[in-house]
């Protein structure tokens, strides 16, 4: 039981971080009809920015807050300047844009900060908490807590506030939304800003728990994509739940089935993605 709780906590911590990526992917998809494959790398870029601030002596939560705000602004600007322009062109334009951003961001990180791995210190204490006889690391609980809080905040904002209703309306029925006077373009930019902010939270949490290097979230993206597909591309809450389910499932499988082990986690998540795609075809609603 104690070992199970420890494995579960570790899996939840990872799953919650990846769920933030999936939520961001879902928001971007609902806004503009494209799955932003660069989401993980942009999150990593945010983490690099945060670590640079930390290296200059900033306090953790201040640096974190500034990074999230900067990332939101970056996502918002990205939609206004890039996504919106590219959307006018060929259908293939948006995937090409995400490919370009993915390559450029990874390249930029390696160029500025080098390819090596850093180990920024965690803001949570290294102590453990005893729950039902198991010693659970505060660090993992902290990561899971912050990530789930961020996801919940965004989901609550989407479903319980008028602004959230406006964002959802603009995504689902843009024509009608424009008709009643909603600023659909603004809502889209907001969606991408939120996606970037969520990504930055994921990136910083990942960096402090597993170390920071370019490409660190590429495996996480596979989990996020699997969760996204499981939960339904159109459902942000589904994306979060789906990613938690996939990550916890795969990680526990790896912990208890030794043949699978740690090395096959990412391929297992990829397999889940492929199986779900085979069994459940995706329907796409293109934004008007």
């Amino acid at each position, binding site marked *: 039981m104690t070992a199970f709780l420890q494995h579960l906590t570790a899996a939840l911590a990872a799953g919650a971080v990846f769920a933030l990526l999936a939520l961001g992917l879902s928001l971007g998809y609902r806004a503009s009809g*494209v*799955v932003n*494959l660069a989401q993980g790398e942009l999150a990593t870029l945010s983490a690099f920015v945060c670590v640079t601030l930390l290296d200059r002596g900033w306090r953790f939560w201040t640096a974190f807050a500034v990074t999230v705000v900067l990332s939101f602004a970056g996502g918002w600007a990205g939609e206004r300047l*890039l996504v919106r*322009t*590219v*959307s*006018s*062109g*060929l*259908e*293939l*334009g*948006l*995937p*090409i*844009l995400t*490919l*370009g*951003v*993915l*390559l*450029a*961001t*990874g*390249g*930029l*990180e*390696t*160029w*500025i900060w*080098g*390819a090596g791995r850093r180990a920024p210190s965690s803001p949570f204490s290294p102590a453990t908490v005893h729950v039902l006889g198991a010693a659970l690391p505060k660090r993992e609980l902290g990561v899971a807590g912050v990530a789930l809080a961020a996801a919940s905040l965004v989901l609550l904002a989407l479903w319980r506030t008028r602004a959230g209703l406006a964002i959802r309306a603009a995504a689902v029925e843009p024509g009608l939304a424009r008709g009643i006077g909603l600023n659909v373009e603004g809502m889209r930019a907001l969606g991408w800003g939120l996606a970037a902010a969520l990504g930055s939270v994921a990136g910083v949490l990942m960096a402090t728990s597993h170390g920071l290097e370019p*490409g660190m979230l*590429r*495996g996480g*993206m*596979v989990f996020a*994509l*699997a969760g996204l*597909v499981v939960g339904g591309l159109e459902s942000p809450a589904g994306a979060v739940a789906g990613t938690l389910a996939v990550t916890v499932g795969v990680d526990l499988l790896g912990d208890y089935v030794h043949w699978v*082990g740690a*090395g*096959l*986690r*990412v*391929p297992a*998540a*990829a*397999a889940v*993605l*492929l199986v779900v*795609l*085979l069994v459940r*075809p*995706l*329907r*796409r609603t293109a934004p008007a």
Partner: protein
Amino acid sequence: MKTRDQLGLVLAAGAALAVVPLFLSGGHTRELSTVAAYTVAILGLDLLVGACGRMSFGQGAFMAVGGYTTAILCGRHGVGVFWTIPLAGAAGGGAGLALGLPALRMRGRALELAAFAAAVAVPPLALHFDGFTGGAAGTAVEHHSPGVVYAAGWGVAAALFLAAWALTGSRFALKLRAARDNDTAAAAAGLNRGGGRLAAFTVAGAYGGAAGALLVVSAGHADPGMFPLRLSLLLLAAAVIGGLGSIWGAVATALLIRYLGDVIGALPHVGVHRAGPVSFVIGLFLVAVAVTHGLSAAVARARHAPPRE
């Protein structure tokens, strides 16, 4: 381009390729063989985009399938390394078929997700099943001189280029392009779009597999580090830069992705570490391509819009 011009270009390129190694050292000749491998991979991507408008973020995964087929057959079972190339192509084709089957049921961009996931999943898979693959150290294959490797690599690339040329001009390809451009009309005209897409994925996979084999032949071994996600991304980027769906850009962009690093490294303040700037430049270029295309489409639409009252 008129067919006569195309023929002229092919003959000129063929002559250049045949003559170039006479002027180069063994090491450079071997490097140019990897360019042949990239060319074949990019050709596969061009065929896929041209046929059904899908981009594959995972050509590196097909290359790994083909490359390891070669490594296992040659390194562990003693099959002559050049004989493994068609087998590697077949293995890649099989993998393409497997990825193409879900494509039959999907609209939209779902395939790109699957291909991306496959590309990320391949190095850990190769590392884990080290009984087959030799793990991190990899598996070695027969070693051949640079001249032989070059001839084999470019021979295969030339043959596959001609096949691609024939394919894109064929009636089958015209049907596929019709399906790509207007799905509904094609269905109304009775075209079997699903079969076409499946064929496109199989062919792209086969080209990827052959490319992987060529890569392993020129390197002399196969290991998981040879097929990172970055390879898949750069190959797709090259296919886009060379002209989406156009096979004519393949050689030029293969040269680009191989040698851009050296060009950038020659710039004074960049120095030795080039992987970052190369990815950055290529990525930025892609963003520019996407944005300018979007801008010109918007401008064209505005120009053709009816005059406002």
